[in-house]
């Protein structure tokens, strides 16, 4: 099969989006209210960018994929988040002006806020869930390979956002709109794209701008940590004002970097604590993971049935995820019976249940089990993990479709990159990384390691769950040589 290049299909997508789009005239700045960030204003050229179909599409992309099935008020979307990131990026710029007014120009502000507006335009339906699926597509893997150092570890949506901004049609539109109609100073649009991925920066002195969008304490984190906590009802906070008082730009360093005064270091710790708490309580909540499996099952059914489509799309290419919305996926119209059945289950919140709970707490002698390490390594190997699921389905005599049997290994979070890159400065001018006074990253890793939990999910019913638990436990022993203790079964709460 020939793989069409990612930039080429992105260009087609951009053209299609702009083909029937007519920009409306925006003469004055607009005020937009936000429950977290209050009342914020956006310049006319920014309103034009926000009005673009690429950004408006984000109104229909859930910020926290399917978490609202567990946290009912977590219905925030990527559009709200985008406005939040833009607002926070603007506030950081304002703070930096106090320390480096010569560097923090109006042009820099336009660039940084534009990058914030576009940073998520490559997000597919259900955000991170799409990312996980898209990451396996050949054209995405190929593009990564073809661009070593640029996209090695970038999330697929960052890659797509970058490519949209880099596409010739998008660039031409931006030049007409921002420079031609709105009189913005001549800005480097390529640099906006580079800021989104924080890589490939041609001008090293611009690193500080990229750090505002994609850095150790960027506007993205500062928004999503507050927003996801607020809308889910979790009491996790960040003192944004304190952060803004302590962040500054060292214009003398090379490259120029954002730094934080010691007095504001606590806000950086709050960012890391917030991240680990949100993962633990929301993103990796067992019911959220089970709901994600229900949706992933729908995509696996599509993959296994060449005749099935969503709005005429096979959903086997990254670009398909930019053309369709969450409503398209969950609509029952014109869908085959098998897909309708799984969609209906999702809509009725008829979710899979735990059969086994797998963690260092439920594995016998984890510290000496190489098999347990090898099993956990499957988190980096989606194909290997699917093969193991297929073996489990076979061990269950194919009584249950593979779409109903899941082995879930949540991806491990890291903290040392952020803690090492975040620079704090004491009153005497001495600099150190956030992790130097105390290894906050290792402390959080220890916390994370104790909380990390994997699951085997299966259909509801005491008998089914017990059967799957037994077969899965036997399979793990046969394949990886580690045994599970009673806790693995008890914590699944099969009643």
């Amino acid at each position: 099969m020939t793989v069409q290049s990612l930039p080429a299909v992105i260009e087609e997508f951009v053209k299609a989006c702009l083909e029937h789009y007519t920009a409306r005239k925006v003469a004055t700045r607009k005020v937009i209210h936000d429950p977290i960030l209050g009342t914020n204003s956006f310049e006319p050229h920014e309103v034009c960018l926000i009005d673009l179909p690429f950004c408006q599409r984000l109104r229909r992309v859930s910020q926290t994929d399917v978490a609202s099935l567990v946290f009912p008020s977590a219905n925030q979307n990527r559009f709200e988040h985008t406005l939040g990131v833009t607002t926070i990026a603007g506030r950081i710029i304002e703070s930096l002006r106090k320390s480096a007014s010569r560097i923090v120009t109006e042009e820099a502000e336009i660039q940084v806020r534009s990058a914030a507006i576009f940073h998520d335009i490559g997000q597919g339906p259900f955000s991170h869930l799409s990312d996980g699926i898209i990451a396996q597509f050949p054209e995405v893997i190929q593009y990564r390979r073809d661009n070593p150092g640029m996209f090695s570890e970038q999330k697929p949506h960052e890659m797509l956002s970058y490519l949209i901004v880099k596409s010739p049609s998008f660039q031409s539109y931006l030049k007409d709109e921002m420079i031609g109609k709105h009189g913005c100073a001549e800005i480097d649009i390529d640099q906006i794209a580079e800021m989104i991925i924080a890589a490939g920066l041609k001008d090293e002195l611009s690193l500080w701008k990229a750090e505002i969008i994609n850095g150790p304490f960027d506007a993205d984190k500062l928004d999503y940590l507050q927003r996801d906590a607020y809308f889910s009802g979790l009491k996790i906070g960040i003192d944004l004002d304190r952060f803004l008082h302590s962040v500054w730009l060292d214009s003398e360093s090379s490259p120029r970097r954002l730094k934080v005064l010691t007095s504001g270091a606590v806000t950086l710790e709050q960012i890391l604590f917030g991240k680990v708490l949100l993962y633990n309580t929301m993103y990796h909540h067992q019911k959220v993971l089970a709901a994600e499996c229900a949706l992933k099952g729908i995509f696996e059914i599509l993959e296994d049935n060449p005749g099935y489509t969503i709005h005429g799309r096979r959903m086997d290419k990254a670009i398909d995820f930019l053309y369709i919305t969450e409503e398209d996926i969950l609509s029952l119209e014109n869908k085959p019976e098998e897909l309708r059945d799984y969609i209906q289950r999702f809509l009725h919140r008829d979710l899979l249940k735990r059969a086994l709970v797998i963690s260092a707490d439920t594995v016998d002698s984890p510290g000496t089990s190489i098999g347990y390490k090898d099993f956990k390594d499957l988190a980096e190997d989606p194909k290997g993990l699917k093969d193991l699921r297929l073996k489990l389905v076979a061990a269950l005599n194919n009584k249950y479709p593979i779409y109903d049997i899941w082995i879930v290994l949540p991806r491990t979070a890291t903290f040392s990159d952020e803690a090492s890159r975040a620079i704090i400065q004491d009153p005497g001018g001495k600099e150190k990384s956030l992790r130097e006074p105390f290894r906050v990253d290792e402390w959080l890793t220890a916390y994370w390691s104790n909380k990390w939990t994997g699951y085997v999910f299966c259909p509801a019913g005491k008998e089914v769950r017990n059967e799957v638990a037994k077969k899965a436990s036997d399979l793990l022993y046969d394949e990886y040589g580690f045994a599970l203790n009673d806790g693995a079964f008890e914590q699944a709460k099969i009643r």
Partner: protein
Amino acid sequence: MEEKRPKTFTPSDVIAALFVYLPKEFSNDPAKIHSTIARLQKEAEYKYLLEDFEFLNYDPFPYSPLLGRILNRLQESRLLASLNPDYDMYVVSEESKKAIEEGILNKKLYDQRERLSEIAGELSAAL
């Protein structure tokens, strides 16, 4: 063209195998660990073992997200620990070392022992 040999080991096997040659306790300084692996990766004799780690040109040191995840995952699986209350040293227990030697080094990386010992030596010197 150089023939690509199918690998029977994973990047996490390589990192775990280094523990056999490292002292029981060693510094968990990510700057030194990532910088050393990034440097050795460029040397022809270690490329085969370390080529899966892609490094981002972060300031102040090159950082491999995969290496970061592996070190954390090894802690999740209890083969590696960080010492409370300072958390500034990694610790690998004698039992874990023995299990790694038998289950990884001797089974999956037997032919690479010399190279691994050299990498661990460089790492030890850096830490």
